[in-house]
């Protein structure tokens, strides 16, 4: 029962992105003028995501800050737009901190996270941003740098659960939760130079149960702070709320089922060199694990936060949202990917289309680092521009580097028509991590330029990303 119909993975496209894609002439002009690949960001699309998170806060009666995890995109336009939207920002390097300060974030709306060098700590301490400390030594270092007391959070990791033992992936980051006492001793040792404002975690997992254990662990840590008389009011639960990339769950299920069948040899391969995305065939049994982002995720972003807050805490057996409220704790979050849902796309020009046996190979003027969907295991089909739909065609997308591995997709993607040289492909919903996180200047190829598009009446208008400022239009003198 070989399924020979095409196996599309149609991306979820919201109306704003859809209407940008309809501006075919504008997009073509932009690529002609600024080169391929070209990154396009949509600052106007941020508001809906921010509002969705705020609605979850209101629903749970919680207060706290939404820190945008800047690492997800280098765009100035997106950052400035968020500064205007009264959102806060999470910076993870000296340069990100400088960028955030320059984009209009005041220090009270900035948190510095992740591994930090001395310069980063210095600027953070000088400007008075909150620092999420990764280790007790970082607390010492900060205490030695500041003039006024530096506001800090302690990031914890390695939480333990009661009863059922949760095995979590080992993390490089944070203070192991059993060393909380030691970390708090340091804070108290530096009283006057450090002011503890919160307890934090960030876990790289989509699993709600692990996060529920971590959040309850932070609440326990908060109790410990209060026992010591430290007035701590915030819990920062990091990012990782996820995005739903695909329009249709059935397509995703069909594609993954067919991949498993292909790996077992029950149907022709779907992928380049029979790549199994982590699955392998051992004597007729499927082994390994699917190394792909679960691209169809109906509960993601703000919905995921809502689900976490509604989850019953494993030890206290009361919903986590209520426990936070009971403890009068503010809830801080650091969404990156989820805040950028539908906020950008990458355009690439088709250079060559050729047939090789049964396969159609399409070479693009862009490489796998410019559109790093494969690297992040997110599978979505690109959109063909100009729009035609006369002959659904499955193609492999090859990049412009001299590397065998430079495949923009290692699977066949489905296009509504056979592409022609000069066409554009739009990789939608790529603002979170897939646009500039991995891009490099290998072979002296340029890194993509970035433009911001925004509505001007009925039409879309554009400017270079760095020229975008969310300044209100001047009132026309009547």
């Amino acid at each position: 029962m070989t399924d020979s119909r095409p196996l599309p993975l149609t991306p979820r496209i919201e109306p704003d992105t859809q209407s940008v894609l309809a501006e075919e002439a504008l997009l073509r002009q932009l690529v002609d003028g600024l080169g391929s690949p070209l990154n396009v960001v949509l600052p106007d699309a941020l508001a809906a995501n921010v509002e969705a998170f705020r609605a979850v806060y209101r629903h749970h009666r919680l207060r706290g800050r939404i820190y945008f995890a800047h690492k997800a995109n280098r765009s100035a336009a997106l950052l400035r737009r968020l500064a205007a939207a009264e959102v806060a920002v999470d910076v993870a390097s000296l340069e990100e901190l400088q960028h955030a300060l320059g984009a209009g974030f005041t220090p009270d709306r900035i948190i510095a996270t992740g591994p930090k060098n001395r310069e980063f700590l210095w600027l953070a301490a000088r400007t008075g941003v909150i620092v999420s400390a990764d280790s007790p030594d970082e607390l010492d270092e900060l205490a030695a740098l500041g003039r006024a007391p530096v506001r800090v959070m302690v990031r914890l990791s390695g939480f333990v659960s009661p009863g059922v033992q949760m095995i979590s992936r080992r993390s490089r980051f944070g203070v192991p939760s059993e060393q909380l006492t030691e970390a708090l001793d340091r804070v108290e040792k530096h009283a006057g130079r450090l002011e503890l404002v919160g307890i934090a975690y960030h876990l790289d997992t989509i699993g709600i149960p692990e996060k529920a254990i971590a959040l309850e662990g932070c609440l326990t840590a908060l109790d410990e702070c209060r026992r010591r008389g430290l007035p701590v009011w915030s819990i920062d639960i990091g990012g990782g709320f996820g995005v739903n990339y695909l329009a249709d769950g059935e397509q995703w299920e069909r594609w993954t089922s067919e991949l498993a069948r292909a790996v077992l040899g029950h149907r022709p391969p779907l992928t380049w060199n029979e790549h199994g995305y982590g699955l392998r065939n051992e004597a007729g049994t499927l082994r390994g694990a699917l190394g792909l982002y679960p691209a169809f995720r109906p509960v993601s972003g703000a919905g995921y936060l809502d689900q976490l807050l509604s989850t019953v805490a494993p030890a206290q057996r009361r919903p986590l949202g209520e426990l936070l409220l009971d403890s009068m704790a503010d809830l801080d979050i650091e969404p990156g990917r989820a805040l950028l849902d539908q906020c950008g796309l990458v355009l690439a020009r088709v250079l060559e289309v050729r047939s090789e046996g049964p396969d159609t190979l399409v070479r693009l003027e862009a490489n796998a680092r410019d559109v790093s969907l494969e690297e992040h295991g997110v599978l979505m089909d690109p959109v063909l521009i100009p729009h035609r739909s006369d002959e659904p065609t499955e193609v492999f997308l090859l990049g412009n580097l001299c590397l065998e591995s430079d495949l923009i997709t290692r699977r066949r993607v489905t296009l509504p028509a056979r592409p022609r040289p000069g066409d554009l492909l739009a990789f939608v919903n790529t603002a979170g991590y897939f646009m500039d996180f991995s891009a490099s200047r290998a072979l002296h190829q340029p890194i993509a330029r970035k433009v911001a598009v925004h509505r001007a009446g009925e039409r879309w208008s554009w400017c270079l990303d760095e020229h975008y400022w969310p300044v209100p239009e001047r009132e026309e003198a009547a």
Partner: protein
Amino acid sequence: MRFDDMTEAIGNTPLVRIDPAVHGLRQIDLYAKMELLNPFGSLKDRAALQMVRPLLAGAAERGDTVVELSSGNTAKALAMIAGMHGVPFKSVTNRMKVPEIKDLLLLLGAEIDELPGQAECLDPTDTEDPLSRMHRTLSANGSGYVHTDQYFNEQNVEAHLHGTGPEIVKDLDGRAPDFFFACVGTAGSSTGVARALRQHDPDVRVVGLVAAKSDFIPGIRTIDEVHEVGLFDPGVYDTVDTITSDDAVDGLLTLVRRCGTPAGPTGGGAFQGAVRHLRALDPTLTSRKTAVFIVCDRVESYLSYLRERRPALFGRPPRRNDTRDLAADEIAAAPTVDVEEAARWPGLIVDLRNPHAYQALHIDGSINIVDELFAEMLHGGLPFGRRQPVLLVCPVGEKSARYAALLTRMGHPAVRSLAGGIIAWRDAGARLVRD
């Protein structure tokens, strides 16, 4: 029947005919193999005993722990058998989604390790899944573990080849049934029984039942996941049908309400899957046929699973004095006091937050009754006198307003809610204490 230990009670379960008035098949006699009557509660008792028996003496001597990847029934049986020999048992799983089963295993003295969820940021160099990694650690020599390895262990099949299968043949007077239906978890039972039946009659039609993709029926695999099972051989089954969790619950209800059979969801799914499959054939049959399905385990461990899917089944009679019966205007009219007035409150102060939060910081002189408990108390009537002024405190003043409205309705004249809750109290800089 007199036994030396409980494991001797494993097996020899009855084969019970299902009343044709219930299934409506005209030409087919349908029988249930009542595996739920095994002493530890399921079909898996057989496989657990068969797999672990040869390992126990060595494990006890070395002080090893028995370990298995199991989401429930195998773990339950192994925990009890290992416990009889003073050997510890640990279950590793990412599939244990039914809380009662977790609690039961902890009660039996098992240790449970849960595997992590997928990474949010994919690490493309990490091609090993946690399960394979776990597998490798377990099978290393001197690891301190003996691994029963149910998904790959032939003993899991043997238990049914020599037990379950022949028992069915014996109870059908030496004949194999024409049809056999079984849900597929490790595939041990369906494979073993199918082999035994085919030794008698190669024409037995064997139907494997799995869950539909992205559905969840505790104990069995989805249509995709069966391929990850070492014992699974598609050649065993004439057909592999999918059943949904809805089917499983429908079938369970029929078995418990009409057939005197307290079956769990896979028993229900096997019944529903069998009847659906057979109903299509029944009108075409010209001679009588027999069919057998397996009722793997019992209903009691799945109450939360059922509650989640069919809340209507558990509709309890309405209780008196419930905040859910209040009208919006009653809540809006709940009497409140502000922080300043609360600071001078002469009577009782009840803090409705959880005990941890209360103990960490509270208003001096307040007592703690967590809201769930308070709600229970009010179902019984007023828990304090009408002359006693009462101030209710919660995080933001919403819950306390509801309870103040309810107490007012119950005839208490001097109850108040702290407007804005303890968060407003804190924001106003009023004093919070801990004891």
